[in-house]
């Protein structure tokens, strides 16, 4: 149901991996002396890497400021990356369902559609509870469902009902096929509590 920063992590790890690889190769080349052989301008392996006085390099205030800003920037990027690790639901806000806004708008909260889906799933036999989350736009909606069933439920039957009734009904309401659908099933020891009465179809005799 929740989304993680998988794509962001992969991108940053690839960037950091390339930088670390380049640094490692450079150190290996410098240590083996190959770098000096390739380019005589570079320092040899036995010589110190920094020959000058570092204090004179970092003495100007501008260099200190640049290093400080770069440090803050790197720290902020790291902090943002850590914050991006928090799993998020990222639900859709509200769907705009109008064709011509000049004649009026039609708005429907995605949670309203989610509640309708949940109500429909909850009527299936063996379902203890459910939650539905809609993401994406009204033209390309994604539906994620978490269905909790009890241990007597026929899971294949529930999945069939969801695929044959619940998902097509949502497609009918939004007038577009769903782009992606995810179903997470959980088994619980609880019993479904759907009510204490049932509509009778018996004959009434006057």
């Amino acid at each position, binding site marked *: 149901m929740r989304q993680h920063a998988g794509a962001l992590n992969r991108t940053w790890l690839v960037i950091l991996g390339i930088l670390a690889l380049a640094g490692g190769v450079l150190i290996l080349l410098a240590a083996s002396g190959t770098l000096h052989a390739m380019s005589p301008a570079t320092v040899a392996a036995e010589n110190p890497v920094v020959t000058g006085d570092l204090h004179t390099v970092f003495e100007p205030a501008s260099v200190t400021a640049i290093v400080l800003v770069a440090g803050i920037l790197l720290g902020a990027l790291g902090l943002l990356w850590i914050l991006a690790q928090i799993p998020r639901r990222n639900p859709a806000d509200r769907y705009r*369902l*109008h*064709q011509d806004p000049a004649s009026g708008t039609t*708005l*429907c909260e995605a949670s309203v*559609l989610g509640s309708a889906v949940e109500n429909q799933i909850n009527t299936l036999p063996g379902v203890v509870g459910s939650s539905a989350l809609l993401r994406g736009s009204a033209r390309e909606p994604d539906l994620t469902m978490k269905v909790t069933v009890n241990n007597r439920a026929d899971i294949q039957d529930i999945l069939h009902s969801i695929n044959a009734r619940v998902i097509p009904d949502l497609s*009918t309401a939004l*007038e577009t096929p769903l782009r992606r659908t995810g179903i997470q099933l959980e088994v619980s020891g609880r019993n479904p509590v759907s009510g204490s*009465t049932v509509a009778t179809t018996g004959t009434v005799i006057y």
Partner: protein
Amino acid sequence: MNATAAHAGSRDLNSRGRTVLDRKVVEKIASQVASEESFAGGSSGGFLGIGAHSDFSARPEVTVELAGNIAALSMEIGLLYPVPLRQVTEQLRRRISERVTALTGVEVRQIDITVSWLKPADETTGRRRLL
């Protein structure tokens, strides 16, 4: 002779007085038209909006902004699930616009619809209902 008759006619029109419609009249007409559709409903019960429940037989909440003889409506409705939302709201918009204009003479230019709940027609709460 004709000039006299015309003068008398205009005097009659002036002597009839004016008919003024309150904004609430337009609101209630629009609300009633919406509730007459089988797929639309409103909310009923509760106190000061707290504890209200969705009801297909209730009138949806409508607010009207009037500018001269032109009205802009905004309404909160509940709809039957599953119905094609774009189609039924367009149908509802056309119907309300036609009926309000026919009954009041007010031109409805814009109807903003917010779908506040969706329910199947045969949904039961599983609890006893008072009739």
